[in-house]
């Protein structure tokens, strides 16, 4: 036994070069990934940043009780679920439809050009994209002019100051920014389909829509299933960079998502333990959601991520 150990030690030191490549990475992970996980225990303490952690008193589930009785917490849950549901129900099919329609374009050059242009906004920062949105939605902005020209509204609406538009603003800006980029993965899946399938279907007299549905959509179903599982399990998350850019004091009622609530409580109000408790509860629910979504998908379609 002892001999085996020394042998292993010898072998270990013999490959010190390889080890010296990997170990800094492991140390980095221990510091930047594992230490924050360890710090999650302040959710059960009354932690103050000025003192060492272990000197803070344990308070059990006090912070958990506090946030479940906080109306603002439930409001942030409602906002998160509202925005995520719109994104999931209306937004999820959009890149798929875009990929399907783009696939029907015959000219290869036009197809490539459209695709290249379509994912440009993904690389534009949210500060810029959000800045354009705020300008367009404001007084005298493009949206107001367009709506009035079309006769949809007869006077200006300050869209971003009225909370009731906020969820839709996040949906539309996100769709404009990310549709092309999200479609890439479907386009890749479509390009992998055996062309023989289409020829066979054409001989059998299948029309364009039938081929699109029975061959294209069926062939990329596993990709759709995986992305759907991920989308469902991410339902408690939100696009923080987007919301942080578009929120203001007037629309906060509908804009404060769970992420933003955690930020506001933790970093603006300085209630570190309290917001860590919210974080803690959220990650447990998110893991559960991932499990449920995966299980359901496996049952219904046979496709899953693990």
């Amino acid at each position, binding site marked *: 036994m002892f001999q085996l150990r020394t042998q292993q030690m010898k072998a270990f030191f013999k490959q010190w070069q390889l080890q010296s490549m990997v170990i800094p990475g492991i140390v980095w992970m221990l510091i930047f990934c594992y230490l924050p996980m360890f710090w999650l225990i302040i959710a059960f303490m009354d932690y103050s940043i000025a003192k060492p952690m272990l000197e803070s008193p344990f308070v059990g589930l006090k912070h958990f009780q506090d946030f479940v009785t906080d109306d603002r917490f439930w409001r942030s849950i409602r906002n998160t679920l509202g925005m995520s549901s719109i994104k999931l129900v209306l937004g999820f099919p959009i890149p798929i439809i875009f990929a399907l329609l783009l696939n029907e374009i015959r000219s290869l050059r036009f197809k490539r050009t459209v695709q290249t242009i*379509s994912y440009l906004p993904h690389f534009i920062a949210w500060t810029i994209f959000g800045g354009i949105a705020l300008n367009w939605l404001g007084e*005298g902005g493009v949206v107001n*002019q367009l709506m009035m020209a079309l006769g949809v509204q007869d006077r200006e609406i300050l869209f971003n100051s009225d909370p009731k538009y906020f969820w839709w603003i996040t949906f539309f800006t996100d769709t404009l920014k990310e549709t092309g980029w999200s479609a890439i993965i479907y386009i890749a899946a479509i390009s992998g389909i055996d062309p023989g399938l289409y020829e066979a279907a054409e001989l059998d007299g299948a029309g364009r829509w039938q081929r699109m549905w029975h061959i294209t959509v069926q062939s990329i179903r596993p990709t759709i299933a995986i992305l759907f599982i991920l989308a469902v399990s991410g339902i408690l998350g939100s696009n923080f960079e987007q919301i942080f850019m578009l929120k203001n004091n007037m629309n906060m009622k509908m804009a404060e998502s769970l992420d933003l609530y955690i930020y506001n409580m933790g970093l603006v109000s300085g209630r570190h333990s309290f917001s860590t408790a919210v974080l803690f509860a959220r990650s447990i629910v998110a893991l559960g959601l991932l499990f449920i979504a995966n299980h359901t998908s496996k049952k219904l379609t046979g496709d899953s991520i693990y």
Partner: protein
Amino acid sequence: MGRRSTLKRIGVFEVCNTLLMLAVCFLTLYPMWFVLINSLNAPEQAMLGTVNWFPKQLSLDSYSVVFNDKTMMNGFVVTILRTVIGSAAHVLFTAIVAYGMSKTTLIGRKLYMKIALVTMLFSGGLIPTFILMTKLGLYDNFWVFVIPGMYSFFNMVIFMSFFRTIPDSLEESAKVDGASDYGVLFRIVLPNSMAVIATITLFSAVYHWNDYYQGVIYIRSQEILPLQTILYKIIAENSMSFMQQQAMAQFGARLPGNSIKFASMMVATLPILLFYPFIQRYLVKGVMIGAIKG
């Protein structure tokens, strides 16, 4: 007869579909065009914010305000520094770890992999991370942009699988010639991995260029605020005072905030827009690798 009707149907579909795709292109490009023309527009025109196609009256006044603004230019330098140092550190560190991990002879490899995998499932989240950064002295410190972003599991897996495709014979012959593991990595493996290095560098660079949120959370000192964070403050928090004062001094009251905003936005996006046609192939390639791995 049947054949002719199919032809006709295809024709209508094709036309509609092409028009739809053109509409997608328009919706994608017009916002950036809008920023460009309004930044070049004479200030009085930009203030109106009307829908237009070309600048009505060309003027570079707004740009001269932006380029003469010390805060903005300082932010520009900070962003360039964090983009260069941040992406270089990320690629180098991740690639070195990945090379070690790609060797099946590595003792403890299974344990290392488990340690890495857990980080994909669980994370501390915003508040614990913030406290840690404060304790590590990274709060209000330029290195907060570099060190916490040095490594990513996802990119390590991409590097690792790419390194495995490099023929063993190449590495072996270098070893026979007396090269160390580091020698093999830097002289044989990395020069043969330029495609994947380019892709990951670009992703990292775009992230560093566009990120404003790290700056909002961790940075208080003006001197190390990145450009995008300054832009966030100008646009979302409307804190234009410093620039407006300058503009007022220079142009009187006739230069309103809007055209300065547009010019700042243009300055902050121009590098991305200029490089985009050249780099987009690599970026798409990156997604493909990621998609196959995922």
